[in-house]
């Protein structure tokens, strides 16, 4: 069973960002299914976590609900992350969520990126903002992201949103299957192990009296 986490940074209800996230999720699961891989997905809506994200930024620790969202990502084999485009970048809540997410959560995580905006003029937000951030977090970002402008939800011609979603889903599905099941990183245990090694090597240099 492949576990997908879906993060939607939309602020309105209903949200076109959530709509895009759901369609990406459905397309990815359909493609995985066609390849004989069963998958489940869990959606993390950021709007209800807005205050918790800011509290975590100020206090340094997550509330229970935010910690649950972190666990959904940490336990996932892949992530679909979609944000509205604000001021030539991702939304602030979207960025803040990933700012307070514990380090190493996304290391080696296959990620499909998506964004929405009023017009197609902002489509490079995927390449200028989302891709570098997830690369920085050591995620494996799928080569094809999806940007949806308001018009895309009604367009009749050209490269339709449906086709772009399907193309991105096929790429991401192949990436997920290549990467396989993901082992959750245990940073706590890793820090203890590295400290144990450091203390041991110090002892070899300076045997204890």
């Amino acid at each position, binding site marked *: 069973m492949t576990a997908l986490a879906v993060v939607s940074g939309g602020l309105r209800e209903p949200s076109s960002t959530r709509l895009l996230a759901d369609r990406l999720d459905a397309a990815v699961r359909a493609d995985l299914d066609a390849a004989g891989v069963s998958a489940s997905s869990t959606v993390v809506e950021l709007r209800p976590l807005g205050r918790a994200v800011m509290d975590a930024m*100020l206090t340094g*620790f997550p*509330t229970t609900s935010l910690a649950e969202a972190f666990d959904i990502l940490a336990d996932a084999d892949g992530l679909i992350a979609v944000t509205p485009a604000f001021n030539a970048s991702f939304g602030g809540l979207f960025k803040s969520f990933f700012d307070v997410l514990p380090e190493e959560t996304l290391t080696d995580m296959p990620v499909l990126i998506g964004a929405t905006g009023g017009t197609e003029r902002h489509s490079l937000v995927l390449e200028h903002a989302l891709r570098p951030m997830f690369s920085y977090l050591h995620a494996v970002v799928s080569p094809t992201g999806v940007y949806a402008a308001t018009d895309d939800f009604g367009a009749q011609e050209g490269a339709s949103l449906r086709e772009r979603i399907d193309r991105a889903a096929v790429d991401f599905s192949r990436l997920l299957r290549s990467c396989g099941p993901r082992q959750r990183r245990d940073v706590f245990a890793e*820090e203890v192990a590295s*400290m144990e090694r450091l*203390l041991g090597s110090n002892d070899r240099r*300076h045997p204890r*009296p």
Partner: protein
Amino acid sequence: MQFGIFTVGDVTPDPTTGTAPTEAERIRATLAIAAKVEEVGLDVFATGEHHNPPFVPSSPTTLLGFIAGRTERIVLSTSTTLITTDDPVKIAEDFSVLQHLSAGRTDLMLGRGNTGPVYPWFGKDIRQAVALTVENYDLLRRLWREETVDWEGRFRTPLQGFTLVPRPLDGVPPFVWHGSIRTPEIAELAAYYGDGFFANHIFWPASHTERMVRLYRQRFEHYGHGTAAQAIVGLGGQVFMRRNSQDAVREFRPYFDNAPVYGHGPSLEEFTAQTPLTVGSPQQVIERTLGFRDYVGDYQRQLFLVDHAGLPLKTVLEQLDMLGEDVVPVLRKEFEVGRPADVPAAPTHESLVAARKSEGADG
């Protein structure tokens, strides 16, 4: 079990009046607080070490030396001494002198400090924080235990034939705690040497403290210092009390809402639910504090933070009166209930001297 307070030493405006004490007033207030700790029958006074505004305690052993001269009974400690950026030779010297001045009423808690720039200010590289901790602490231990030290490391000029003066009182170094807010590395360090582990506790949820203490206890046993239950554990706590709990909440709220560490974030109620902060009656503080044992086991030292966020000295002294009169006597009694006989008390100079003598007699 030991009870005491730990102070950060912040100069913070009182949010209800807008006025901040001068540095001189804050330092004098700290002295009054330490004197009160002794007067009301608590056991430990610990001060932080900071090298930037708005804090005043940049030289803890100077402060503690003065307090040592004005008190008879309390243990003087730190929360924390910066093992990463302070020269371990100077730490050894300063605490050796303090140990003699206080006739053994000295221990210390090692930690890493709370601000990044302290590393470059003292010529150190923050990326080496863990390696600095390990190397500096190794040297500190040697200086206290070996008459003549030949030593070479990565971060400090080598020592050849160096002798620490004065030698530790009665040949016994001060007991060392290792303080940690977040990192399990410090629990491993404390366990490795069989030192005390102090979980800051107050800024994070209890589940985090529980996990850290469990790790420390397991590793303490792993390294052969005793059973997990015999490991030496200290906890922070944070309280504000009035006879009537509603009065406590009403009075403390503006201080909470504007506190430098957590202000302008979660509400007082949320933070109280998520962390050990207890705002209420002495009875509520007693019940909450006794509950700590449920997730860390029987432990040795409980320090409270009571003098931060701009609380006036008068209020802080009232808190100490309540701790001394109403809270700690009950805690002492209740914490003894069901405490296994082989769980040690917090090490003191006297107990360490006695342990050394019995080791000598055995060997």
